[in-house]
C-alpha cells in the first residue's frame, strides 16, 4: 500500500529539506536592515553612534508628541435622544442582504446609528448562516468610492445635479422616448415587481452576470416551468455534482452548505455520512470537499452527463469515453445512485440547456424529483435568460429602444461581448443608471441616480417561493442617493415614494400594522408555496442528439470560475474580500491561471522550493480566437491535465476605486454565446510561456509547523469503522508516556504550575467534517475585531494579518501527488493554550493567561519583541509591521522607507468614512504590536455582563464568537467548559473517537479541540496521521 501524504505546497512536497530550512525563520522575508544600511544617508560607518542618535531623537520626539498639549475633547450628546437608542449598546435590526438577486436574511448590528457588523438571522431558514460576501457587505456601505449625488453627463463629464432637475430632464426625455426598457439584475422583490408591472409601457429584461439560463430553459423544457428548484442536500445520501460549485458560488451556497453539512455530520455510535462525488475540470472548493473526484475536459461535460444517464438506465446511448478512470467512475456513481433509490441528487453547473436537460433526465431516473429536488420552493435568485439580453442588444443596435434604465446590472463589464453592448448603449438616446458606484456601465450612461445600500433602504426579497425577507433601513442614507423604486414611482406619476408604497403594500398583504411590524422585526414571513410541475422527458432526445454532435476540444481548454470572495465581480471593490485568501489556491489580490502539474511539466516549470517559496510565478499567455491574456500561473494538483482555470471578477474599471484598480485581469471575454446560452468555457485555447514572472500574493506557506505532523487528523470512513479508536489510543499513549504516576496528562506532564480557573473556562470545538472552507468565519473575524487590511504589497512580504486562517492540506499518495484524494480545511486561530509557550517568553508580560482560560494580549503593553510569535507552535500571532490602521501618533509611519510604502487600499481603509465600520469595543492596534485571536473577548464580556445585570447565571450559547455566528454549517461550537450541560462539553463527550487537539504532544494544552475529518471512501490508507505511525 502506498503511503498517504499530507502537504500544503509543492515546496514541502518535493524538497522538504530546504522547505524546512527556509521556514526556520519566524518571519520569512529578510528583515529590512540590509536595506537600511545601504541607504546613502546611513552609509557612514558609525552605526553605534547613529543608534544612540536615533534613540535619543525618538525618545525626545515621543515625549514631545505625547506631552506638549493635551487635546480638549468634546462630548456631544444627542439634541433629542430617540427613545430606543442607548449610546454604547448595540441594537440588532433584521434586514436582508441582497446581491445580484441572491438574498439572505440577516441582522445588522447597529452602534450609535452605525451598522458595523452583519450577522445571520437565527430565526430564518438559514439558521444564522452567512457567507464571506454577506459578512463583508457592511463595508460596501462605507465605500469611499460610492456615488454621492445625482449626475448628468455634459459632454464627456458628469456634473452634479439635484433630484428635481434630473427628474425633470429624464421625465421630459421619457415622454418622447417611445420604447422604454428596464435592464436589471434578477429582481425577486414582490413590491418592486408590482411597481415595474404597473409602470406604463415598460419592458423588463433581467440579466445575470453569471447566467443560469441553461438550467431555467432546461427546466422549462422538462415541464417544471422556467424555474430553479431548491435542492435538498440534507435528504440525499449520494450527491453527484457535475462541475457545480454548490458549496461556494452556485445558486444558494449558504442554504446548500447547511443541508450538505447535515448529511456529513457523523454520529460516532453508527458512523454514516452522505457520499459526495464530483466530476469537474479544475479543483473547485466544492470539489475539494468531495469524497471522490473525477476530472475531465470542459468539453466533455455533456458526454459525462450522457454516459451517466445511460448508466442509470435513462434510455440514452452512452458516448465513448476514453479515460478509463473516468469511465469506471461514471459506472460506480450510477450504481450508487440507483442503489440510493430516491436519495440521490445530481446537480450540474453547466449553462448549457441540453446538458441540463440530460441532468434532469438523470434526476428523474433516480427518483430525485420530489425527494431531493423541490420545485414548490422554487429558488428565485436567478432569472436572466441569455437570449432575451442578446435580443435587447440587437434592438438597441436597431434603434428600437428609446430609453434604457439600468439597475443592478453591469453588462459593460461582465457580458462576454461587452464592447458590443457598450456600443449599443451609446446609441440609445436616453440612458439612466441607478448604479451604486461609477462602474463600467454607469460610466456610459447619460444620467446617474445612485441607489441606496441595502442597509439604507426599505425593501423585500423572495429568495425562495413562499419566503419573503424584509429590508429595513439601519442608517440614514450617507449620501444623496435614492431608491430605484422611488424613481420609477415618481416618473410614472405617483406622488408616493417607495418607503410609503412599501409600507402600504405590505400592510395590505399582511393584514395590518401589527403583522407588518412583526414581519419587520423577524425579518421575514413564510407562507406555504404550492405547485411544482412534473417531469416530462420530451426534450431529452433532441438534447442528447445535440450533445453527441458537440465538437471535441482542442489541445488545451479554458474554464472560467468564480471565487467565493469576488464572485462575478461584486466583491472586487471590497477590501476585506480582496484580502481574503481563496479557499483552494490560498491566493488573494488578483487572479491567476490555474494549471495542472502535467501542464507545468510541459511548460518546463519546476515545482521546487523556489517555485513555492518566492511569490514570482511564471506568466503564461492564453489565447482563444481573438482574445488573449497574460496571467501568472498557479500549479494545482487534481486538475484535468489540459484544463486551465481562471477566476472572473477581476480587471475592473479604474473609476471603481482604489481597491479594485489594477487587480487581476478580466476574463469574461473568453466566454461565448453557444446556441442560446453563454458558455463559460473555451474549448480550444493555446498556451504559451510569456517568459517573464509576476508576483502572486499567497498566504499558504507563510506559516510552517516545522514538519510536525500531528496538526491535523483525517481518515476514511472504512478505516474509521475498522479502527475507531486510533485517535483515542494515540492520546492515551501520551498519557501513558508523560503522566505515568497519576494518569493526569494536564498536571503531571509539565514543569509549570497549573492555572486556577475558578469560574468560567472557555473552549471551542471545530468539526472538520462539516467545515467546507467557505471563509465566512475569516471575514466575520475581520469585521468583528478591526483586523487591518494590509494590501498586496504587504501580503507579498508575509505580513497578512488574519487572526483566523483556514489551512489547506492536500492528501495524496506519496508517489502520485497529482491524484488528490482529498483536501482538508483546518480553521486555525489562537488555540488559547493553558500552558502557552508565548506567555513564557514575553519579557514585559504583555501576553498572559486569564482565569477563564483565555490567552490574553495587552496591546498597549507590547513592545514588539515578537518572541511570542516565534515560540508559538501554531503560528497564529500577527505583528503590525507598519501602521496599517492610522492609530500611531506619527502619521509618517504609514509611509516610511524602512517599512515600505503601503498600498492605496490601506489608506482607503483609514478614510474617515471607511473607519465608520470599526467596532468601537475593540482597540485599533498601532504599529509595532502583536495581535491575535482573543476568543472575541468583547462578546464574552458582553454576555457575562448581560447575565450579571439580569442577576442570573450565564446561559449556554449566549456568548458566541464571530466565527461561530457566521458559520453556515455550525462547524464551530464555543462555550463554557465548566458547565457540564454545555453544548461544547456534549460535543467533546459524544465524539471521543474523533476528538483531538492540534499538536497535543507538545503539552501546550490548547482550549480549541477538533474533530477529525472522515472521508466517505472505502480506501484503507495508513492511518489518521501520516508519519509517526506508518513510518
Amino acid at each position, binding site marked *: 500500500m502506498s503511503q498517504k501524504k499530507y502537504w500544503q505546497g509543492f515546496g514541502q512536497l518535493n524538497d522538504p529539506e530546504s522547505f524546512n530550512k527556509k521556514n526556520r525563520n519566524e518571519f520569512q522575508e529578510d528583515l529590512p536592515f540590509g536595506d537600511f544600511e545601504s541607504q546613502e544617508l546611513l552609509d557612514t560607518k558609525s552605526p553605534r553612534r547613529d543608534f544612540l542618535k536615533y534613540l535619543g531623537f525618538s525618545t525626545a520626539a515621543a515625549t514631545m508628541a505625547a506631552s506638549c498639549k493635551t487635546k480638549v*475633547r468634546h*462630548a456631544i*450628546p444627542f439634541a433629542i435622544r430617540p427613545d430606543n437608542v*442607548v449610546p454604547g449598546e448595540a441594537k440588532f435590526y433584521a434586514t436582508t442582504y441582497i446581491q445580484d438577486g441572491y438574498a439572505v436574511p440577516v441582522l445588522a448590528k447597529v452602534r450609535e446609528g452605525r451598522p458595523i457588523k452583519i450577522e445571520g438571522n437565527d430565526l430564518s431558514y438559514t439558521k444564522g448562516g452567512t457567507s464571506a460576501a454577506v459578512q463583508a457587505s457592511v463595508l460596501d456601505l462605507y465605500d469611499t468610492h460610492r456615488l454621492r449625488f445625482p449626475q448628468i453627463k455634459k459632454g464627456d463629464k458628469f456634473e452634479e445635479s439635484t433630484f428635481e432637475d434630473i427628474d425633470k430632464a429624464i421625465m421630459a426625455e421619457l415622454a418622447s422616448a417611445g420604447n422604454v426598457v428596464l435592464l436589471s439584475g434578477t429582481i425577486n422583490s414582490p413590491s418592486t415587481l408590482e411597481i415595474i408591472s404597473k409602470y406604463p409601457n415598460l419592458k423588463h429584461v433581467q440579466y445575470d452576470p453569471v447566467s443560469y439560463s441553461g438550467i431555467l430553459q432546461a427546466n422549462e423544457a422538462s415541464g417544471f416551468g422556467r424555474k430553479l428548484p431548491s435542492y435538498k442536500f440534507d435528504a440525499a445520501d449520494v450527491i453527484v455534482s457535475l462541475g457545480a460549485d454548490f458549496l461556494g458560488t452556485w445558486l444558494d451556497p449558504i442554504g446548500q452548505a447547511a443541508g450538505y453539512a447535515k448529511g456529513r455530520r457523523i454520529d460516532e455510535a453508527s458512523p454514516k455520512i452522505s457520499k459526495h462525488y464530483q466530476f469537474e475540470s479544475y479543483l473547485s472548493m466544492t470539489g475539494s470537499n468531495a469524497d471522490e473526484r473525477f476530472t475531465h475536459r470542459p468539453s466533455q461535460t455533456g458526454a459525462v452527463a450522457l454516459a451517466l444517464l445511460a448508466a442509470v438506465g435513462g434510455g440514452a446511448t452512452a458516448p465513448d469515453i476514453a479515460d478509463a478512470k473516468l469511465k469506471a467512475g461514471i459506472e460506480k456513481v450510477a450504481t450508487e445512485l440507483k442503489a440510493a433509490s430516491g436519495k440521490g441528487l445530481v446537480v450540474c453547473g453547466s449553462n448549457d440547456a441540453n446538458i441540463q436537460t440530460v441532468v434532469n433526465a438523470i434526476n428523474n431516473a433516480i427518483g430525485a424529483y420530489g425527494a431531493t429536488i423541490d420545485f414548490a420552493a422554487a429558488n428565485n435568485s436567478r432569472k436572466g435568460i441569455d437570449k432575451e439580453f442578446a435580443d435587447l442588444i440587437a434592438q438597441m443596435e436597431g434603434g428600437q429602444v428609446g430609453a434604457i434604465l439600468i439597475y443592478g446590472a453591469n453588462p459593460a463589464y461582465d457580458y462576454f461581448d461587452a464592447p458590443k453592448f457598450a456600443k449599443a448603449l451609446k446609441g440609445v438616446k436616453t440612458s439612466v443608471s441607478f448604479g451604486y458606484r461609477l462602474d463600467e456601465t454607469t460610466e456610459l450612461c447619460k444620467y446617474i441616480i445612485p441607489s441606496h445600500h441595502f442597509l439604507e433602504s426599505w425593501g423585500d426579497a423572495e429568495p425562495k417561493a413562499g419566503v419573503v425577507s424584509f429590508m429595513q433601513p439601519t442608517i440614514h442614507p450617507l449620501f444623496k442617493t435614492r431608491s430605484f423604486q422611488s424613481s420609477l414611482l415618481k416618473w410614472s406619476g405617483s406622488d408616493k415614494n417607495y418607503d410609503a408604497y412599501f409600507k402600504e403594500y405590505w400592510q395590505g398583504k399582511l393584514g395590518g400594522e401589527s403583522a407588518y411590524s412583526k414581519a419587520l422585526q423577524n425579518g421575514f414571513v413564510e407562507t406555504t408555496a404550492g405547485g411544482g410541475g412534473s417531469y416530462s422527458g420530451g426534450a431529452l432526445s433532441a438534447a442528447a442528439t445535440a450533445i453527441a454532435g458537440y465538437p471535441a476540444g482542442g489541445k488545451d481548454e479554458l474554464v472560467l470560475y468564480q471565487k467565493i470572495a469576488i464572485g462575478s465581480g461584486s466583491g472586487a471593490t471590497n477590501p476585506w474580500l480582496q484580502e481574503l485568501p481563496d479557499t483552494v489556491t490560498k491566493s488573494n489580490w488578483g487572479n491567476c491561471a490555474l494549471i495542472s502539474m502535467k501542464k507545468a511539466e510541459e511548460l518546463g516549470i519546476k515545482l521546487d522550493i523556489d517555485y513555492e517559496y518566492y511569490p514570482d510565478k511564471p506568466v503564461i499567455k492564453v489565447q482563444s480566437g481573438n482574445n488573449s491574456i497574460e496571467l501568472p500561473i498557479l500549479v494545482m494538483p487534481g486538475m484535468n491535465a489540459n484544463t486551465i482555470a481562471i477566476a472572473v471578477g477581476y480587471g475592473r474599471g479604474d473609476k471603481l476605486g482604489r481597491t479594485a484598480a489594477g487587480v487581476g485581469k478580466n476574463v469574461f471575454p473568453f466566454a461565448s454565446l453557444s446556441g442560446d446560452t453563454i458558455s463559460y468555457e473555451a474549448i480550444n485555447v493555446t498556451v504559451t510561456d510569456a517568459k517573464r514572472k509576476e508576483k502572486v500574493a499567497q498566504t499558504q506557506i507563510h506559516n510552517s509547523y516545522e514538519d510536525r505532523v500531528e496538526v491535523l487528523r483525517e481518515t476514511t470512513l472504512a478505516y474509521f469503522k475498522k479502527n475507531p479508536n486510533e485517535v483515542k489510543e494515540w492520546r492515551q499513549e501520551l498519557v501513558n508516556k508523560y503522566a505515568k504516576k497519576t494518569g493526569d496528562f494536564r498536571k503531571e506532564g509539565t514543569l509549570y504550575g497549573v492555572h486556577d480557573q475558578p469560574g468560567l473556562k472557555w473552549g471551542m470545538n471545530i468539526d472538520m467534517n462539516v467545515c467546507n472552507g467557505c471563509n465566512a468565519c475569516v471575514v466575520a473575524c475581520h469585521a468583528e475585531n478591526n483586523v487591518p487590511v494590509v494590501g498586496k504589497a504587504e501580503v507579498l512580504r508575509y505580513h497578512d494579518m488574519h487572526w483566523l486562517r483556514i489551512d489547506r492540506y492536500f492528501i495524496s499518495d506519496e508517489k502520485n501527488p497529482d491524484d488528490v484524494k482529498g483536501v482538508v480545511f483546518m480553521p486555525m486561530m489562537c488555540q488559547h493554550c493553558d500552558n502557552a509557550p508565548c506567555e513564557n517568553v514575553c519579557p514585559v508580560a504583555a501576553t498572559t493567561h486569564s482565569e477563564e482560560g483565555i490567552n*490574553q494580549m495587552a496591546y498597549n503593553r507590547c513592545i514588539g519583541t515578537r518572541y511570542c510569535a516565534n515560540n508559538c507552535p501554531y503560528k497564529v500571532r500577527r505583528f503590525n509591521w507598519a501602521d496599517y490602521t492610522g492609530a500611531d501618533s506619527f502619521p509618517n509611519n504609514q509611509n516610511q522607507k524602512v517599512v515600505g510604502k503601503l498600498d492605496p487600499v490601506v489608506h482607503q481603509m483609514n478614510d474617515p468614512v471607511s473607519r465608520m465600520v470599526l467596532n468601537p469595543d475593540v482597540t485599533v492596534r498601532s504599529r509595532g504590536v502583536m495581535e491575535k485571536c482573543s476568543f472575541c*473577548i468583547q462578546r464574552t464580556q458582553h454576555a*457575562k455582563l448581560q447575565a450579571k445585570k439580569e442577576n442570573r*447565571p450565564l446561559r449556554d450559547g449566549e456568548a458566541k464568537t464571530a466565527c461561530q455566528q457566521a458559520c453556515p454549517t455550525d462547524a464551530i461550537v464555543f462555550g463554557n467548559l465548566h458547565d457540564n450541560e454545555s453544548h461544547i462539553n456534549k460535543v467533546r463527550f459524544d465524539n471521543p473517537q474523533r476528538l483531538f487537539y492540534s499538536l497535543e504532544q507538545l503539552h501546550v494544552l490548547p482550549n480549541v479541540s477538533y474533530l477529525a475529518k472522515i472521508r466517505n471512501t472505502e480506501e484503507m490508507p495508513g492511518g489518521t496521521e501520516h508519519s509517526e505511525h506508518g513510518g
Partner: protein
Amino acid sequence: MTNYKYILNRLTLIMITLFAVTVSASIAQDSTKAAGGNSAGIEEGKQLFTSKCQACHSGDMKSNSIGPALGGIEAQWDDKGKLHEWIRNNIALTASGYPKAVEVSKLTPVVMTPFEDLTDAQIDNILAYIDAKFTGKLDQPAPAAGAAKPATSESQNNWIFAIVTLVLALIAITLMFVNRRLKRLANDVEGIPTVEPLPFFRNKVYLATIGIILFTVSGYYFSKAMINMNRQIHYEPLQPIFYSHKVHAGINQINCLYCHGNAWESKTAAIPSVNVCMNCHKTIQKYNGEQLTDASGAMVDGTAEIQKLFKYAGFDPQNPNNWDESKAKPIEWVKIHNLPDHVYFNHSQHVRVGNVQCQTCHGEVTAMNEVTQFAELSMGWCVNCHRQTAVNFNKDAGSGNQFYSIYEKFHNDIKSGKMDSVTVKDIGGIECQKCHY
C-alpha cells in the same frame, strides 16, 4: 569652660520652643458662632422640604417653579385637613371634585407627585417652615458666607505657617552660626588652634550631598511627571453653559441617574440630551437660588445660563407650549473624564452590577458647581480598587448576584471560613484583558 556650650545649646532649644508656642497661640481660631435657635419642628420641616418639595417648588416661597410658589399657602386653603389630603394624594382629591383642588390642579401642566407616607405632624412642620421662610421670620443662616469663611481662614493659616517656618529657619541658621562663632571663640580662649574651614562651595562632601539630593528629588519629580503625563486630575474646563451640579444634584437632589440613566444600561454614562434638560426647564425659566460663582470667583447669572439652554433648544420662554423639538441643537460639552482608547470601561458593570456609588470615582459632585476631575483615572487607581472591592457573592443570603453561583470553590471557601469575602481581583478583575481588548 564647658558651661558655655551647655548654655548655648539650651538657649537654642528654649528659643525655638518659645517661638513655636507663641505662633500657634496667635493663629488659633475663634470658635464659630452658634447658629440661631430655631425650633426643632421648623428644622424638620426644612429637611423635608429640601428632600421632597424643592425639586419642583422654589425655595424662596415667592416665585413659581415647576410647581407654584408656596408662600401663604395655608391662608389660601380654608380646610387644613383638605390641604393635608392634597399633599398626600392630590390626584385623588382632584378626582373627588373638591373645588379648590380642581382649581390648583390647573395652575401647572405638571401633576404633583403624591407623598402618601407623610404624617400630619410632618406636613405641619413643612407648612411651618414654608410660613417662616415666606414671612422672613427665619433668619437666613447665609450658607454662602459660612462656606467662604473657612476657606479664607485656611489660606491665611497657610501663609502664617509659611512665614513662621521661614522665621524659625532663619533663627536656626543664625543660631548655628552664632554657636559656631562662640565655639571658635571658646577654643581661642582655651588655646586650641582652629583649622580654617573650606568654603562650602569647595567642600566636596557638601557638593556630593547636594548633587545626590538634587538628583534624587528631581528624578522623583521627573518620573512622577512622566507617569502623570496626559492625566488630568483636577481638570475643570469651561463649559458652554455654566451648569452647576451643586444646584441640580446637591441642592435640588436630583438623582444622578435621572440625567445619566445610560450609566445603568451601557458602557457610557452619556450626557443628557437637550430634551432631558427641557423636561424641567420648560417651567423653570429663572434661577432663584443662591448667588453662583465660577472657579475664579466671578459672579454667574443663573438665569442667563438657562437662557443659553433655551437658545440651544430653540425654545421660546414666552411661548412654552409651542416648542418644536426638532429645532434643538446639541450642546458641545467639554469632556472631562477621558480614558485612553485602549481602555474598555463599562459604567453599567460598576453602577448596576457592582453597586458602586457615582461619587466613588467622580467625587462629591453634589458640591461642585462646574465639575472637576476628582480621581486620577490611572491604571494603579483602578487596580487598587479592584484589589479591595468585594464582589456581591452572598449566594446563600439570597442577595448575591446569581451570576457568581458558578464559583463553587469560592462559595465553599466562604462557608468553611477560609475566605471572608471575594474581591474583584479573585475573579480575575486585574487581568489585562478585562479592560484592554
